């Protein structure tokens, strides 16, 4: 018994990721936390997307189930679980059942290397970013097999479109990623593919890679930001499920629980690619303005921000509690909203405790940056009209790919400028 307790406690002083420390117990705990947090994030994202999109289009969005529709995603999830699970008669049943599992597995597996903090990752791999790109590229297999196994026209066309799209944009995405990885090799420790190592390289070089070699880092980031929207099949590149042409694309024939697996996978893939962008270019878990606003006073002020954010959310909730209709029918809803605000405020207060503050600051900054990307996804959907398929291919192959190749060469030249200049001088002196 004492040994087990010691085994569990030994990790806490190790200052490593559970995978790095080789501790099975904490690895399991971390996996459960990440999986649970991800599911909650997907549910929250479902509500936020509908609300924000509605407000962008001057509508109210869901308002009936719970105060301001807060319980709507839970009601939706229950509805999906209760729905009949249909397998079309002419479908290839085995592949039809396998496809959603491939997509979900690929979307969730990548999170074992996502660095929420220097020690807050399930594990740190030497091939971190390669692993993320490789495993997330497996999800296209699920999409393709889903479309084919449905044995129906719209899903097949949707699957063909999505595989063409995902394979095309993977190329531009890879080029942008390589240019960021080349920047890590300028650190004294040498280049790395590890997700934690990439953020530490930005810390050592005292510069986020989005600002490095301005504007090269920024261009790489923009290429990635465009390609990642296409990779996740989201608006304005959501041709695989263009509802005006293909009903629902590759998942037309899916219903109930299997459809919700596709839904889950789409949103967690969005979070995964956003975390790649945050890790590579936006300094991962590092707080903003580490150079201009440095020193222990600023450290203290920035460590208050997580708590203040939650307190601000609680204040907004209570403002809406006051604005709720005073009719007795709304009594329960008002009480529920007040309870929600109280929970948010309590979380905010807990985040002010020094021991908690020190440990969750990195997680907060990482999540906040990812959340900004999630808001961008919704904003794109509310703003841009859908691309035509030939336009999509043109952007991928004729715009992003040449810019990416040029960027790769120029990043290498700028990064090696001293060495190149030296060898040029030597060449001139020899002749």
């Amino acid at each position, binding site marked *: 018994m004492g*040994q087990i307790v*010691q*085994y569990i406690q*030994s990790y806490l002083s190790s200052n490593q990721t559970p995978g790095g*420390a*080789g*501790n*099975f117990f904490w690895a399991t705990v971390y996996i459960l936390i990440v999986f649970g947090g991800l599911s909650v994030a997907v549910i929250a994202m479902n509500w936020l997307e509908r609300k924000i999109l509605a407000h962008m289009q001057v509508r109210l969005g869901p308002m009936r189930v719970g105060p301001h529709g807060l319980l709507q995603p839970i009601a939706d999830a229950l509805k999906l679980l209760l729905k009949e699970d249909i397998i079309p008669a002419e479908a*290839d049943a*085995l*592949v039809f059942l*396998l496809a959603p599992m491939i997509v979900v597995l690929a979307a969730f597996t990548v999170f074992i290397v996502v660095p929420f903090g220097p020690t807050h990752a399930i594990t740190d*791999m*030497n*091939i971190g970013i*390669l*692993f993320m*790109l*490789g*495993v997330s*590229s*497996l999800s*296209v*297999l699920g999409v*393709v*097999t889903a479309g*084919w*196994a449905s044995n129906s026209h719209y899903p*097949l066309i949707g*699957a*063909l479109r999505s*595989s*063409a799209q*995902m*394979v095309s944009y*993977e190329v531009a995405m890879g080029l942008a990623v390589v240019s960021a990885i080349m920047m890590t090799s300028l650190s004294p420790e*040498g*280049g*790395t*593919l590890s997700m934690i190592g990439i953020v530490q390289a930005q810390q050592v070089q005292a510069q986020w890679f989005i600002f490095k070699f301005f504007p090269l880092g920024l261009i790489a980031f923009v290429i990635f930001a465009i390609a990642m929207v296409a990779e996740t099949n989201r608006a304005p590149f959501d041709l695989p499920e263009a509802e005006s042409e293909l009903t629902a694309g590759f998942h037309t024939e899916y219903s109930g629980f299997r459809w919700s697996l596709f839904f889950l996978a789409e949103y967690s893939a969005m979070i995964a690619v956003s975390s790649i962008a945050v890790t590579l270019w936006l300094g991962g878990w590092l707080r903003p303005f580490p150079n201009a606003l440095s020193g222990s006073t600023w450290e203290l002020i920035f460590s208050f921000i997580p708590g203040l954010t939650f307190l601000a959310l609680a204040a907004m909730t209570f403002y809406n509690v006051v604005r709720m209709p005073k009719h007795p029918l709304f009594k329960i809803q008002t009480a529920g909203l007040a309870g929600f605000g109280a929970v948010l405020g309590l979380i905010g207060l807990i985040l002010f405790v020094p021991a908690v503050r020190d440990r969750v600051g990195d997680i907060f900054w990482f999540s906040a940056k990812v959340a900004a990307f999630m808001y961008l996804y919704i904003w794109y959907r509310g703003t841009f009209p859908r691309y035509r398929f030939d336009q999509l291919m043109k952007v991928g192959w004729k715009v992003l790919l040449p810019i990416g190749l040029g960027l790769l060469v120029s990043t290498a030249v700028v990064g090696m400028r001293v060495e190149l200049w030296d060898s040029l001088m030597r060449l001139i002196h020899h002749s």
Partner: protein
Amino acid sequence: MNPTMAVSNPPVATAFFFYLLATIMILGGIMVITRKNAVHSALALITALLAQAGIYLMLYAPFVAGVQIILYAGGIMVLFLFVIMLINLERTLKERQFNKQWLVGLVAAAALGGLFITVFTKGKSLFPEGHLTYSESFNTQEVAALLYDSHRGMYMFAFEIASLLLLVAIIGAVVMAKKRI
């Protein structure tokens, strides 16, 4: 403290993992040639390729495993499936699966089997014994150094020639597909 150390970092390169992954690979390989449906064959091939990536991981070569997943399972097999979907599957289902060249096949299988048995029994004396000199966490850096390092890099020429070969193949495909260039 010591028992926890023993638990914390068990070796990955064990006989259990090798036989598990090898079994998956062989079963996948057999499925590739026995399934009538080309999509099922392709999925079985993907399983075999992923098991192969697992064997690379087991051999402490994570970079090779990552490249295996991203290139073969994620890239080439997607194109395979893409092409398979565009051809008429109903006709291929009716075609005969095996041809009658069993004599040639038997000779080839016997030769290959003989080779494998020879390697299995005499492998220790045939190949030089190698030991991993670096930690697995430097695999990527070691691969890069073997390719491009100015002192130790000895495979750069071979690597670049191989990529030139692929470029020729791509240009050839474009030339064949386009009527006018």
